[in-house]
């Protein structure tokens, strides 16, 4: 493990000051929320000295606001806290089931969806679910606050859109209207404690006849970043989310994917399975939306 310094600013101003200092000096600062990815990375070959900036003590990263229009989840909220929030579970069952898949019960006491997003692993479970739910990143830096849809926040494997001096404060979602629901599924060879071979998040809105009037589909672990798949949403729109529509959406996910072969799965396998996950997640979201 390489040498590192640790700071835990108690408010946003202090945090931004520390980040600015490092940004201008060109030294390395790394954000820590739950730390479940960072602590593992600290043990890797990269021993470059760094300052770890713990953002857990900042009020804005630790807040959940469930408003009539908007829902805000602070970036340092652990999965375990999310999953015990029954109101959120009713609004975003898919997002919460994704958060519930990260690591183990013990890990979820620390792991955050904000951290999962910033770590930008192609296989991060909460990311496709956030994209499907229409998540928007609230980013703060010296120049103020900016917002960016989650799908635009990811810039590559392990890379995100944060500029030096910036941090992710939280995630904003439009509060889902009636007959709207989401779902997330991933595939792993085990039942838990594993990394997605493929993942798919789906959010749908139905009218009173059960026809799909809005949809978002996002896929994970099948491209350098999690992707929004507009073509899959197109396939669902206007349909009753019957088998044909689900199959077409699945095929769109396969078409949008560009996976690699590795120890966790082959290109061919991932392309097939992402379609299966899309079909199944969309069916779950549909059934949830119907109530």
């Amino acid at each position, binding site marked *: 493990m390489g040498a590192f310094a640790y700071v835990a600013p108690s408010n946003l101003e202090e945090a931004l000051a520390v980040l600015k200092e490092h940004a201008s000096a060109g030294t390395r600062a790394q954000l820590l929320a739950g730390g479940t990815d960072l602590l593992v990375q600290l043990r890797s070959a990269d021993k470059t000295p760094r300052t770890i900036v713990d953002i857990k003590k900042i009020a804005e990263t630790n807040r959940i606001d469930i408003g009539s229009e908007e829902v805000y989840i602070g970036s340092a909220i652990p999965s375990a806290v999310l999953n015990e929030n029954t109101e959120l579970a009713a609004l975003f069952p898919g997002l919460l089931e994704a958060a519930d898949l990260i690591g183990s019960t013990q890990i979820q006491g620390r792991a955050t969806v904000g951290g999962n997003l910033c770590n930008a692993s192609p296989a991060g479970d909460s990311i496709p679910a956030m994209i499907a739910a229409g998540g928007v990143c609230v980013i703060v830096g010296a120049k103020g606050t900016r917002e960016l849809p989650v799908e635009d926040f990811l810039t590559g494997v392990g890379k995100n859109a944060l500029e030096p001096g910036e941090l992710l404060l939280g995630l904003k979602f439009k509060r889902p209207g009636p007959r709207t629901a989401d779902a997330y599924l991933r*595939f792993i*060879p*085990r*039942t838990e404690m*594993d990394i997605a071979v493929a993942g798919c998040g789906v959010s749908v809105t139905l009218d009173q006849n059960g026809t799909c009037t809005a949809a978002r589909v996002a896929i994970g672990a099948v491209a350098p970043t999690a992707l929004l798949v507009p073509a899959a949403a197109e396939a669902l729109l206007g349909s009753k989310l019957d088998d044909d529509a689900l199959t077409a959406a699945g095929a769109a996910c396969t078409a949008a994917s560009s996976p690699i072969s*590795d*120890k966790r799965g082959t290109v*061919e*396998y991932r392309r097939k399975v992402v379609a*299966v996950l899309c079909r199944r997640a969309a069916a779950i979201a549909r059934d949830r939306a119907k109530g």
Partner: protein
Amino acid sequence: MAEAVDYKVIGTSPVRPDGVDKVTGRAQYGADMNLPNMIYGKVLRSPHAHARIKSVDLSKALAMPGVYAAVSGADFPQAQHGEIGGEGGGDVADLAKNIMARDKVLYHGHAVAAVAARSVQLAEAALEAIDVSYEPLPPVLDLDAAMAVDATLLDENCFTKNLPEKPDKPSNIAAVMQLARGDVEAGFADADVIVEGEYRIPMAHQGYIEPHACTASVNEGGQATVWCCTQGHFEFRAMASKVLNMNIADLKFIASEIGGGFGGKTVLYLEPLAILLSQKSHRPVKMTMTREEVFRATGPTSGTHCKVKVGAKKDGTLTAATAWLAYEAGAFAGAPMGPGAMSIFAPYRLDNFHIEALDVLVNKPKVAAYRAPGAPQSMHAMECALDDLARELGMDPIDLRMKNAAEEGTQAPYGPKFPAIGFKACLEAAKQHPHYTRPIPEGAGRGVAAGFWFNVGMQSSAEVHINENGTVTVVEGNPDIGGSRASMCLMAAETLGVTYEQVRTLIGDTESTGFSNVTGGSRTTFATGMAVVQACEDIIAQCKARAAATWGVDEDQVEWEDGQAVPAPGVNADVKPLSLADIAANAARTGGPLLGRASLNAQGAGASFAVNIADVKVDRDTGKVDVLSYTAIQDAGKAIHPAYVEGQMQGGAAQGIGWALNEEYIFNTDGVMENAGFLDYRIPVASDLPMIDTQIIEVPNPSHPYGVRGVGETPIVAPLAVIANAVRAATGLRINDLPFSPPRVLEALDNA
């Protein structure tokens, strides 16, 4: 011969004496020994799977402040050839070169140097300062390619052993063996149905949770004390003595508690390095492996390529069988091809068979024993073929096995005739088991297969001390892997006629108790148990003598009943029975403390058979196999501690299911293992498995005073074929190669 007896304590399942310390974290494992002035050793490992070492320069590392010692192959005595017996044995020179490479590195992760420094971080930094110059060679990674005539050679001096004539060219095939009986051609000609199959299984690791760890301290007189996690400290001492050319009397090995071994901790890796580093630094040296090192450089079991052909009459009678079994040895000879060959047909009466097995060098870690070494792979092939045969014959798979089952008097393929064995009893129990008689769940498939392991006896010693108040201390020399302390306590209590709570068992170090072979081969409860029983019988004889002297009668006028000396029937003596406590309290006046001893080379380890049943469901869209229910039925001879016997059966099933479904070494084309961690080397997690149901069958082993058969290894043998046969039933597809990872299963489904 053990009769069906009502035992008082044997057959109960009390809490293990070491349990509280283990669940509260007090127990001392391999990495828990800390000494004053202790420093930390780390190993530099080869980045190549196959290369010649041109030079190793330790000088820069040694010059670093806080670095106290560094060693490479040149610091070891010349490795002499010669056999070391036992499960972790083999050729001494190979063992030595595996511990520290000399002229060549033979797998990625092979040790090339080691350092000891003030901290682990400093030791790691020192490793980076070691200059090693390599001449890379092409790695030999494929089992079949390794056997090709023009294959790159791992060892230019390796000439295939056991051929009729010494070959004139070296080869990667280190040895072959043949087993044959009868007339195979005639047998197949006699068959109405013949099935054939070809099966490949990649390397798999034992997956013990505790990484290898040791601490060594060498004094200025050259005497070394080593604390380590091991399945056999006496054999570690013997191996270390040979590898380091040290006097056995100068080596003391103390076994820690052990966090899993499964055969893999019968092999010496770190201990000689720690001793050498301690010698050079004059400080105690602790060494612990990372998980990654455990995967890359310690004991996997062989990857295999097996072919089997079985012929039968319409009524199911087997007429002939052949097997060709190729085992990866890894970097040095010593794959478990022998036991693999000897076990493949062992459960069956078979007049005509031929088996050829091969021990093949490849540039992968040297294989080590893993629970029933060699048998899971070979028997997977046979048990899959039998399943196919049952289908072709339209027979129930248990009936087919019953029709051909070995029993008392059947000549085993490896020579001797079986004494009383429990295979038929296991098959009968399986046929009647509620798991087998209930309907198969919708969309699922059910598989069955048999398992077998020889079990071994070997050498054990035991002492029994009677404390002043009549409580009992048993001292023996086998590290407790699976609850053996509790079993020893139970057997001692039963023999002496006292309660379980009055007996404590401890594991002595190499200086404080007599020699015992490793805890391996499912031998401990059988052989060491036998020594404990004999040592207790020694105590009883002494107690009778003391009582006789006290009462003024002859020794043969005293009997031992329910934990006390009583006058024999018909002896006219008006005396009160003397309990163990009475005799102990009076010991000073009757000849001093009571100490019983026994040492033996146990013969007649009874083979243990098993039949397992599984229901699985296959997700046809993703290829994922879910095990819905699993039942393990096994002959334990006599279950001394039934709960721990069940634990062995469940643990073996869990490991076998993991091996069948997801566990495999994945190497890239350079021979680098790509999944050297528990994230991607997928042993099952608890939620992956159903409750594993167990049924213990008890056909007593005539060679053990309480009828014990070893139970530790058989449980892992059947699961591979059970899962394969269940998937066959669920999908209609015979998938020959393991593991049944989702991509492999989906590909088979999509290609069908």
